[in-house]
């Protein structure tokens, strides 16, 4: 219990320092561009495969469920609302978060255990500004874009699943979609992406930064694992909070 509280207080202290570094100075631009490219473009392939299957799956599964009480006609609505507001943003955050967060945590933990961070401090280079801030900015800005992309691909996939595989009427699906899904829902999805991206990056850099030299190579593994799991759990919990505030 005291362990948990210590970690939490460490995290809050780290968050304060990281926020100060993130918002008071402009991060080194080449660094930011490199991390943005790695986090954003690097995740597109993975995200595309996953969203296509998630979208198809959403159609098939909801069809199987709604068929039981004769509600197949709701499919377009359910696939639209459930997908755009909840499923795709959360999936993008969990999956890309797992990939990006693990990379961030592993990279920082490696620098920490090989004392590169201390070396920076000795040279009076602020590691928060040069290591943490560009990564925070990169992931915070990359995830909303990924979420928007996932929304488009996901809707396309669930439409394809409904019309071509389940043989539903495409016109009904489209009109239902247009009826319930507006720009505001897409905006909410991207807003969620912004929050999740920031959270994932903060958690990952925190765990990477906390790795101690004495832990050695295992410290890198522990940091990576915690970054993935804590990031995913926090995103899912926070998603409920945001949805509750907005739609509850």
């Amino acid at each position: 219990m005291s362990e948990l509280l210590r970690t939490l207080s460490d995290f809050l202290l780290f968050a304060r320092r990281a926020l100060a570094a993130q918002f008071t100075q402009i991060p080194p631009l080449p660094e930011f561009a490199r991390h943005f490219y790695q986090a954003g473009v690097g995740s597109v392939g993975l995200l595309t495969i996953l969203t296509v299957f998630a979208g198809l799956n959403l159609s098939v599964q909801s069809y199987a469920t709604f068929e039981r009480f004769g509600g197949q006609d709701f499919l377009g609505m359910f696939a639209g609302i459930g997908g755009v507001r909840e499923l795709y943003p959360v999936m993008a955050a969990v999956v890309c978060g797992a990939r990006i967060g693990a990379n961030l945590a592993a990279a920082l933990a490696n620098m920490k255990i090989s004392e590169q961070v201390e070396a920076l401090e000795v040279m009076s280079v602020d590691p928060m500004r040069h290591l943490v801030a560009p990564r925070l900015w990169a992931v915070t800005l990359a995830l909303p874009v990924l979420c928007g992309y996932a929304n488009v691909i996901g809707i396309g996939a669930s439409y394809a699943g409904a019309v071509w595989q389940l043989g539903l009427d495409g016109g009904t699906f489209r009109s239902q979609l247009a009826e319930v899904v507006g720009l505001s829902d897409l905006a909410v999805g991207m807003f969620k992406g912004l929050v999740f991206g920031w959270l994932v990056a903060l958690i990952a850099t925190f765990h990477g930064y906390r790795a101690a030299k004495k832990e050695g190579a295992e410290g890198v593994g522990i940091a990576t694992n915690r970054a993935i799991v804590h990031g995913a759990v926090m995103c899912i919990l926070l998603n409920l909070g945001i949805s509750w505030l907005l739609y509850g």
Partner: protein
Amino acid sequence: MRPMLQLLATIGAGFSFFLDVLHTAVTSPRHISEMLRIMATLVKRCIIPVGLAVAPVGAVISLQGLEIFRMFGLDRMLSSLLGTAIFREYSPALASVMVAAQAGSSIAARIGTMKVRGQIDALAVMSVDPMRYVVVPGVVACMLVTPLLNVLTNVLGVLSGWVFAVPLGGVNHGAFIEHLTAQITPADLWVGLGKCALFGTAVGLIAGYLGMGTKGGAEAVGKAANDTVVYTIVLILLVDYVVSMALLGAGI
């Protein structure tokens, strides 16, 4: 051409690894105590993250489902959607994803570390088959632990869905329970548990395969752990889709 060949080679190697594991698992000697030890560790490490990740899903389904069902004045029926969605789809899939994130990556890291330090070769020198002693117990443990956790997440998912539907959403408690018990059949539960066993096996197999294939130093171990999570999530979503289509076709 070359990437295609590489992909085929990987698939072939993975399949022969799977046959190896299968053969080792069905022949004795079996290291049951090692398996039980891994199972205990997995349950201890996974129970909190898995519970925390799946519980909000029921709440979100209630929250968004109510809005749609209200448009048609059908909010009494909400629990039929909630129950089937949780039992058949979201609880098994998400529980397995979290098991992959927590247990799969740690198994891969553990095997990878042993491999990098030469402990796997040391086992082989002592004529202990590393497959039998290290990989198979991990695979079997994952296969058994994931359905166990799924039972818990089913309860948590429906409970959180109930909280958001009945006290917060204003659905009648009696109607909620009535539609829940009318719609959920034992088949739903078995479908969910079967999926979990399948996904859990996949987690253990991928972790074992990538862990045993680790070459190099600490970075390779991290990569094996990370790849395990990513590949397993892709596989879970893909298999989930195929299973859904098959079940829909079979009318279960």
